Every structure is written in structure tokens, then in C-alpha cells.
């Protein structure tokens, strides 16, 4: 498995994502500047956390229209794996690769803390290393993580098993306690929590290991 981590101006979790992928998921990890128009030959594209373009206009809005996005859409259309973490999730909704939108946290505060999650669907490329209905701790760090979609979309997400991670103690007002979702085909995932920050006991938690190990086995 080879992976690319996209770097936007204002990305700040790209190096952490590279380390996590290199140690647990991929043979080769490329960092790709957002102005590029082509991806290297990869199986997985990761859009990292951060504050692309300073969150100007809306979080993720301007990054979602950057030159590399056309290749990422084509990669997703071919069934290639795409992950958006935090700001990356916001970019994926703005790019219409995932439904819904991420609004200002209901409590208006920037939240930076560990979040308890339940893995709702372990039949995905991103979660198959977790036990069914596993609970895990993965940190969140966001101001705009309040997932919002119309009722029909929420019903479809529920019915089709597209809700991948749910908060046990909803920190931000997200509809249906949503922390992470996939697209209908199951190859594009967005999540607000940061699994790349939870892979080493040295820094506290290891709840994100299952995520990167799942991806490592996704092609086998």
C-alpha cells in the first residue's frame, strides 16, 4: 500500500499523518502540495488536519477548490481510498465527496481533548481491525465539528451503515452524535477525531492504531 498526504497552506497534521502511515500502514508515503494536479501512484489519499487557508470563507472551502482536488475526485471515483481527518473532513464535505457540512461547535468553543468514540461499522477499510461496537479514545481538536445534514441524508447515513464513528458524549452538537462517516461506496471517510495523534503510548493514547492497521490490511 502506498499513500499520499496532501499539504495545503495551513495544514498542520500532515507530518503526524505521514509518521502514522509510515509506521503502521504504508510502504511509501508521499507528501503532495495542493498546487499539484496529479497524484503519485497511490492506494490511499489522506487530507490532514489543520487550518487550510486560515479557515477563510468556511473551514475547508478554499482547499476544496484547489488544483489537486480534481485528481482526488478521480481517485475516489475509481474506488481509491480517501481519508479526511478534521480539516480534511471539512474539505471532503466542501468538495461534495461526503454529504453534509461541519458547522461551528454548538458550545462555540474550540475543543481540544480526548473523545470517547464507538466504532459503529467495522465492515469498512478504515475500521476492520476494531472489534464490533468497540469503544476507543481518540483526541479531537476543532472549532467547526458540528456535523449537520438534512433529515433524508441522516436517515440514509443510518440505513446504509455510513456512520463509522459516533461520540459517546457528544462534545460539539453533531447530529446523531456523528464523529465520522463514509460515502455510500465506503471508500471515502471523513472524521473529526485525530487517529494520528493516538498511536503511541508516549503521547497518551493508542486508540488510533486500529484505524491505521485497518488501512494496512485494506488491500489484502
Amino acid at each position, binding site marked *: 500500500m502506498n499513500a499520499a498526504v496532501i499539504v495545503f497552506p495551513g495544514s498542520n497534521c500532515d507530518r503526524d499523518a505521514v509518521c502514522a502511515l509510515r509506521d503502521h500502514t504504508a510502504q511509501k508515503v508521499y507528501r503532495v502540495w495542493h498546487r499539484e494536479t496529479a497524484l503519485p501512484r497511490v492506494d490511499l489519499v489522506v487530507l490532514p488536519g489543520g487550518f487550510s487557508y486560515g479557515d477563510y*470563507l468556511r473551514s475547508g472551502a478554499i482547499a476544496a477548490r484547489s488544483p489537486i482536488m480534481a485528481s482526488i475526485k478521480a481517485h475516489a471515483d475509481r474506488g481509491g481510498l480517501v481519508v479526511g481527518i478534521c480539516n480534511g473532513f471539512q474539505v471532503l464535505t466542501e468538495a461534495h465527496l461526503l454529504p453534509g*457540512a461541519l*458547522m461551528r461547535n454548538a458550545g462555540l468553543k474550540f475543543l481540544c481533548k480526548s473523545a470517547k468514540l464507538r466504532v459503529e461499522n467495522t465492515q469498512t477499510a478504515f475500521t476492520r481491525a476494531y472489534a464490533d461496537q468497540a469503544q476507543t479514545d481518540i483526541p479531537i481538536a476543532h472549532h467547526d465539528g458540528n456535523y*449537520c445534514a438534512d433529515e433524508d441524508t441522516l436517515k440514509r447515513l443510518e440505513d446504509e451503515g455510513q456512520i463509522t464513528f459516533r461520540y459517546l458524549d457528544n462534545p460539539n452538537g453533531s447530529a446523531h452524535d456523528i464523529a465520522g462517516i463514509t460515502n455510500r461506496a465506503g471508500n471515502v471517510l471523513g472524521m473529526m477525531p485525530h487517529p494520528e495523534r493516538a498511536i503511541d503510548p508516549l503521547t497518551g493514547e493508542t486508540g488510533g492504531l486500529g484505524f491505521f492497521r485497518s488501512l494496512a490490511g485494506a488491500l489484502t
Partner: protein
Amino acid sequence: MKAIVHINPRSGVLDPQGQAVAGALKHLGFAGVLGARQGKVIELDLADIDAEQAREQVTKMCEQLLANTVIEDYSVQIEP
């Protein structure tokens, strides 16, 4: 010419910022405030073209970038 784009959270979409603004106004003693919605205004300087064409172009800009129609409504005003 100028285009002025008003973007607001759609009705029915929770607007925590608007709620906070309304709350603060009430604390200041403005008892008559029943609610507030917080949006944004974008002013565009445009090369002079036909007003209808300009409206059409700016509407496209709204759909493609300026507004997120999942959560926001927009209106376009063209000024000479």
C-alpha cells in the same frame, strides 16, 4: 460595477453564533431582541457588463464557492 452577496445560515439550521449574539444583546438590556442570525456580506468589484449577465455569473460563484447551500442561503444584489 459591484455585486453584494448576502450569505446567511438557512432557516432551520442551528446558528450558535447568532444565538450568542442575541444572548449578549439581551444581557445588555435589549429586551425586544427575539433572535439573531449571523451571516456574512461579500462585496465583489466587477468589470462592467450587463446587469443580468453579472447576476448570472455571481449566482454561479455562490453555487460553486461563496455559499455552502447545505447550510446557507444567499442573495445577490447588483449595483452599477
